[in-house]
């Protein structure tokens, strides 16, 4: 079993880096219409989801919890302009689910923007929203978010789950990068981002317990830290997490002294904004994996005692 301190330290460093580089969470109001204004919302939504996990698990140190709160306040006030940018995004692309996806974790953390909520309720009534073409895993995520918002998911989560890759427990040797991300995100949605590990059905949990070690070994060997971090999150969501020692040690060793986690192999160099765009996700994932794995390690300790 991996040293809990090592796991915890990865998250502490990641939060420090995210706080130091908070200005990287930025929108582009004048984005090329071909790219779209909403493209840059994703990092903000991911930050809120991970910070929510951090508060919920309650294993973060006081400094980490304080940084998480400051970061959330910063992106809500500065980046989202108190939610105004979400409203603007919604008005730019009324049928897009992105403002809803970004808003939900903020709402759960106590932030509020009633105009966004009215749009969500209206959109939810539209056949267009139900017919919105998305990958099966994203579809599952949208249904889960509708439930979390208090709406009846359309389609239901069990129906959405059926068409995902993971639900069919296919041949594990076919997994490559894109499929692996589908697997990790399917697990995030099924467990409400680690909050409800029992959201994994026994057959999916058993399938993951059998094959996850092979995938972790592989992406560790390839030094794909972003994906490895997500796989370590999946491990922490299993009924009996392995907290794989070689993987955690290498993951921790890959982290930079300032807390940044390279996405693949080593840190990129160049323009700070470009570097942020490459490594913010892997660094967020490092914080996410750290807090969930720390929590599970402490739970195991309590059980042993």
């Amino acid at each position, binding site marked *: 079993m991996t040293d809990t301190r090592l796991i915890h330290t990865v998250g502490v460093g990641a939060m420090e880096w995210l706080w130091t580089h908070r200005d990287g969470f930025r929108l582009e109001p004048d984005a090329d219409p071909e790219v779209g204004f909403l493209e840059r919302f994703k990092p903000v939504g991911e930050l809120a989801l991970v910070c929510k996990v951090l508060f919920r698990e309650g294993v973060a140190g006081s400094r980490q919890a304080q940084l998480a709160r400051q970061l959330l306040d910063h992106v809500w006030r500065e980046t989202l302009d108190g939610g105004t940018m979400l409203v603007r995004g919604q008005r730019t692309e009324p049928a897009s689910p992105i403002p809803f996806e970004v808003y939900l974790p903020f709402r759960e953390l106590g932030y509020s923007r009633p105009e966004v909520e009215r749009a969500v309720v209206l959109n939810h009534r539209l056949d267009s929203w139900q017919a919105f073409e998305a990958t099966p895993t994203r579809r599952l995520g949208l249904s889960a978010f509708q439930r979390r918002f208090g709406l009846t998911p359309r389609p239901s989560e069990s129906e959405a789950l059926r068409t995902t890759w993971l639900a069919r427990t296919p*041949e594990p*040797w076919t*997994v490559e990068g894109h499929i692996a991300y589908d697997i990790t995100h399917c697990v995030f949605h099924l467990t409400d981002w680690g909050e409800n590990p029992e959201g994994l059905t026994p057959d999916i949990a058993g399938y993951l317990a059998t*094959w996850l070690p*092979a995938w972790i070994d592989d992406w560790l060997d390839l030094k794909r830290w972003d994906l490895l971090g997500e796989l370590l999150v999946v491990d922490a969501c299993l009924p009996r997490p392995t907290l794989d020692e070689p993987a955690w040690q290498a993951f921790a060793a890959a982290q930079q002294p300032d807390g940044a986690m390279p996405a693949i192999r080593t840190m990129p160099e160049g323009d700070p904004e470009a570097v942020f765009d490459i490594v913010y996700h892997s660094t967020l994932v490092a914080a996410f994996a750290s807090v969930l794995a720390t929590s599970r390690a402490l739970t195991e300790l309590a059980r042993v005692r």
Partner: protein
Amino acid sequence: MEQSGTSTLLQGAVQDLASGVVSALRGGDHTRSVLPAGTDGEAGDLALAAVRVLGSDALLPALLLRTPPDPAEVAVFRKAVEAYPPRADAAPTVRWSHWGMARTLRRVDPSVTAGPPDEPGTGWLDEAGWQTLTHQLAVLAPLALPGEDCAVSRLAGCHPVDVARGFVRAVRRRDWRQAAGAGRWLTLLPAVPDTVGLASGLDFVELMGGQDPLVALHVQAARLMRSGARV
């Protein structure tokens, strides 16, 4: 350079021999001898060395198709067993490979009256993780034969999930020889997780790596064993 040339020659001889075994396994053509008839001179030395490298799989058609091997082939095989005893400091896989050949020789050559050789130990795998275990088992894939018990096969039988993970790892790494060897073991092990999709997995390994006769050999052996072939 000479050494490298010899090594290339030997690799070529092993590939040729493996191709012959694969043809025999596929076609059930028992009339054609797989092993070279003559073992005199330099070419003979090379042929013997190739038989030693392939191990007991050199006589796999005789074992799996249950047909009596050509006495001339048995003689060559016996010569290879006797010409290359493992050295005192040989790696465990080398010792086991030789042990497997001696076992096969006893089965096919009635003139061998000596008792079964002592099994080498499996201690070197006691602490092995699933990655190393699978790699070593794949090297010893010629020991994966239906109904043929030994300490290595008993050890493999205790680790079906580990070997299945190793199969997945080998496929992901495009290590087709290891994947084929691990797949061959999996056909014999109890309690292999269904989700591994072994039948398609073996087809995939053959599709991707089957131009290597050593890969094709294990895949074909696995197919025959899956269809109920016994030794």
